[in-house]
């Protein structure tokens, strides 16, 4: 996905940028509204992450102009304001959602996913791997014409695997990606979700293989 991050705080922007890049996304960062306008004029984005307090104006003005110009890119507002009324008003102005700083990355991911699912309106973005068809927006996995609905963690786990087939992921890395840090999730929990995915993949060419002592990978049998 291609993100536009409009955020004036350098440290925060770099952290978000690093983190999104690490997940395989492409991110452009605009430190102010002027730069953001330049980016928008030349590039098509899948998602805009918009801060409210910016050096050359209020993010809400940008949002309003964005909607007036009938641009469709979804916008998630990053707000530090604790006032709920602020958050509500950004929704009225046409934001797709908002997230309160400091946010947990999994929350941002979840909100992006929810926004995109809402926006896609049923249009899907299919990934094929062997005889498996994966639709992350519809949360479905189709194996030999049999469609299985994935729960959120199964979906995220499969997303990790399918983004890099044949790459080995250690249990601990998978724990980081799958669970928020507010629970002391054990690595055993990963086995549970891997087990579920394996069940869904029964009879398919694509299989999740255990690499002893290292972790798991997705491969074609």
């Amino acid at each position, binding site marked *: 996905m291609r993100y536009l991050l409009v955020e004036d705080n350098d440290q925060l922007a770099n952290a978000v940028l690093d983190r999104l890049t690490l997940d395989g996304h492409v991110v452009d960062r605009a430190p102010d509204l002027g730069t953001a306008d330049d980016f928008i004029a030349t590039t098509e984005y899948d998602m805009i992450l918009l801060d409210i307090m910016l050096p050359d104006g209020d993010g809400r003005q940008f949002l309003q102009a964005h909607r007036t110009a009938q641009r469709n890119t979804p916008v998630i507002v990053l707000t530090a304001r*604790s006032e709920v009324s602020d958050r509500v008003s950004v929704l009225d102005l046409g934001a797709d959602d908002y997230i309160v700083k*400091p946010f947990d990355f999994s929350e941002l991911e979840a909100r992006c996913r929810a926004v995109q699912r809402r926006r896609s309106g049923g249009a899907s973005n299919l990934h094929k791997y062997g005889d498996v068809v994966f639709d992350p927006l519809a949360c479905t996995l189709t194996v030999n014409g049999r469609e299985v609905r994935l729960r959120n963690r199964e979906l995220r786990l499969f997303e990790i695997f399918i983004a890099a087939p044949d790459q080995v992921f250690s249990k601990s890395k998978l724990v980081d990606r799958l669970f928020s840090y507010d629970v002391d999730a054990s690595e055993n929990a990963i086995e549970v979700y891997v087990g579920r995915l394996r069940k869904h993949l029964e009879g398919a060419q694509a299989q999740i293989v255990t690499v002893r002592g290292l972790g798991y990978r997705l491969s074609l049998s």
Partner: protein
Amino acid sequence: MNTPILLRGSIRRRLIIQLLAGAALLASLMFLVVQNYARDLAGQSQDEILSASVTAILDSASVRDGDLTVDIPYFAFSMLGNISDDRVFYAITRNGDFLTGYSDLPKPVASNGILPRFQTAHYDGEEIRMATATRRLSVSGTPDFVEVTVAQTRYGLRQQLAGISQTVAGFGIGFFVIAAVFGILAAQSAIQPLRQLAGSVSRRGLSDLRPVSAPVPAEMESLVGALNGFMSRLKTSLSRSEDLIAEAAHRVRTPLTTVRTQAEITLRRVDKPENRQAVREMIRAIDESSRAAGQLLDHAMVSFRSDHLEMEDVELTRLAQDAVSRLRPMAELRDIDLEISLPDLAMVVKGDPILMQSALLNLLDNAIKYSPPDSTVHVTARRTESGAEITVRDEGAGFPKADMGRLTRRFVRGGNTDAVVGSGLGLTIANEVARAHGGRLFLTNHSDKGGACASLSFPLA
């Protein structure tokens, strides 16, 4: 919230008392003056008649054949009878010797000329008015002094005076009553602008701090000026404190977001289990502090808004739907289903939507946090006898029985929550919001399934 107002006196009462006192004083002054004047007038006319009578008698005195003759004319007494049936007395002396009449009439005062002299005396137990005059006659060459005294009782005069007094008193009372009515009306209308001002200020919405612009009497200029000045200071300080809250949130939370994100990235790059554990603990500590900062700010916002409640119509089913869709992504993240079942009727409550939303989000957030994976959080709303109720139920461990009574206190967390990041303010916030709206927060555990049940109840509008 309201400090009792110390009252000292009342402008209206003071005005009325002053106006009434003035009216009473004027009325009694009028009464006294008119009564005195009437008394003088009546006395004067009696004196004149007495004097005329005395003169008539004296005039009839003549010297005939060297002897003194006094022929009292009839009209000399009849004119006195005009006044009323007062008794009339007379005495005639010649050179100090009693001639005829009532010998025991009090002695008249000594003469100082030919003009009649008047005096008031007592005779036969009654007050009488006496007129006396002296005439000098010449009897065979020697001067002879004839002195005539006519006296009359004063019944008639008193009666007349009593009549006049009554009338004047009537006038006085009438004057007082009319003045009193005008006084009360004047007092009323004098404080009318004050009442209007008070009314227009108290009818205002809570956040309406505009200056008073309606015209007021000149005397109230300084009051309204002070009021407007006060309101503008209040407005400034309110917006300053709101800004401060927002600014503090920004200042505290933005660096925390950076630290947290960097820590997450670091965790991805670190392989050694002990380092990973350290970074995880860092993230957890950051979560604790950022959540505490957030909740403290939310709590400050709730306390602030509860003190300045801005009531509007809030539809509870809509509120519940909004809150659920807001937190659905967070629930999905943990594979938790949010199940919402709402009655097919509108439940309108008077309240501050921002506060109510905040209370409900806190309950939902708790339910999601404490739910085991792959479970369901149920959100229901129903009408109760006294109002409307939204209940959030999870399938987790429930509230620990021992802590049930104190969970709504600040910074108190249940004994079974160690593994979950929390600030101990969520239920406090929900409870304060409910109370500010005349509602309540009920905490129970589901009877058969054991999950925690938190209900917010509000009285219906």
